[in-house]
């Protein structure tokens, strides 16, 4: 097994296990409480408004917005981490059929791994009061993954008359 395939398969397996552990932790210790907080604050906003307490209603609505902002990104983090990991493993199995030299394939595999770590990391930083840095990392990570995937697609399409190895 060459270096590029090792990076994709081993890196992907580690990322998948990490993403699933994060998901298990999140489901057991965080998600139910978060959903309760999100639904509860929205219900409070309406109930307070129904009781004529406009100030409390606005506060509850702000709490709803903040909890939902974090919740959406935490769920995205979990699903994107595992999704990218699975894609890496799948590509790792067939990466010899990308019609580039070994060094180029290794560089593409490294870019896939880097982007797959940086993109979800940026998403989680957006929830940790580092929205600016988080957005930069998320954009950079997704751009790296898109570039690597585009190169892989070109490699597969070029490889019409036989395997690269």
């Amino acid at each position: 097994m060459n270096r590029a395939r090792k990076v994709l398969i081993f890196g992907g397996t580690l990322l998948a296990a990490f993403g699933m552990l994060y998901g298990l932790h999140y489901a057991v210790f965080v998600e139910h409480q978060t959903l309760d907080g999100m639904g509860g604050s929205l219900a409070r906003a309406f109930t307070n408004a129904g009781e004529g307490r406009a100030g409390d209603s606005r506060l509850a609505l702000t709490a709803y917005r903040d909890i939902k902002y974090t919740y959406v990104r935490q769920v995205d983090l979990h699903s994107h981490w595992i999704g990218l990991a699975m894609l890496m493993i799948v590509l790792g199995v067939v990466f010899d059929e990308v019609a580039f030299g070994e060094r180029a394939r290794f560089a593409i595999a490294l870019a896939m791994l880097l982007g797959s770590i940086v993109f979800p990391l940026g998403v989680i930083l957006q929830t940790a009061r580092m929205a600016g840095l988080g957005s930069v990392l998320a954009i950079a990570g997704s751009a790296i993954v898109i570039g690597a995937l585009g190169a892989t697609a070109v490699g597969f399409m070029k490889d019409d008359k036989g395997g690269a190895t």
Partner: protein
Amino acid sequence: MLVFGGIALIAAGMLFGDIFAVFVLHQNGGQTGQALLGAANAVAAQDSSAVKVAFARIGNLLEDRGTKVDAHVHMIDAGYLALLLALLQPYVNLSSSSKKLLARLFLSGALLLPVGIFLIHYVGLAYSPFPVIGWASVLADSAGALLIIVLLIEGWGFRNYMRDGNATPVEPELPKDRTWERRMLLSGGTVLVLLGFVYGAWYAGINLYEHENREMVILKNLLEQPAGAGGIGSSVNAYGMLQAEKAVQIAAHSHIIEFGVLAILLSFVQPFVFLSEKWKRIWVRILLAGSLILPVFVLLELKLGLLAGAIADVGGLMVVVALVGMLVGVVRHTGSLDAEPGRAR
């Protein structure tokens, strides 16, 4: 076992998703909108107890919808993982009996996980010793933990293989043929994934924050409507449209990527599909066409309405039919191993 179980899980998960989309999704959305309208009217009438009743109803509807979506997604993803594990088996340095046990445990967990998620809405907190976690959640979490344990042991076996620099595969590797089916699935799948990534990046950059801001504006408008104001209905409609807009955009993004990965995975198992070339190509064409039709027409639902929704459902059904067709080929392959060599018809 993993190839058969993986394709069966994906086909079952997609069929469940199609049934959910046709019989539950739109009705659930309509009922949620009605409940929100009731809550807004109760706010305008300063009736806080009616607000609480309306929100209990909304929470119930959202849980109903969310658990069904999760069951659909987790069953398909577990199927993908089963196919992946099947591909990795030649490089997992464990005994044959251990691998069979792991495969059985994985498929058991993969079945129990979506079943547990599906039951969360119906079982609720009945007889549960926990304040917010019911027995169905315990079942789902335990099944998820089982999948993680199996994955870690498989990873350990893979590590053992990797540590031996001169190791040869412990099982015969998958045949690396260059058939038309394999090339079409491989390149078509990669293009689908790429399209999904580009669309996802566009959605995150252009729509995500705008949707979040618009939701707050609509909710503020709803809460500040005076009693008897005619704007409540239009605000609830705007909220419903926003939710629909988000749902179709996210669904288009996730489905096109999942179908791309599925196509790549299926390219590996084509040697196990014991069908004639003609039928193999037919299933590949149907699968790729359905994989494009579903996300494109899901995206067009807001412009074309129910017609687009119906075409999207047909696209999903095309993928399911192609999967079942390939599954029949896998069953025939296992049968052919025990029989005299024959010619596929």
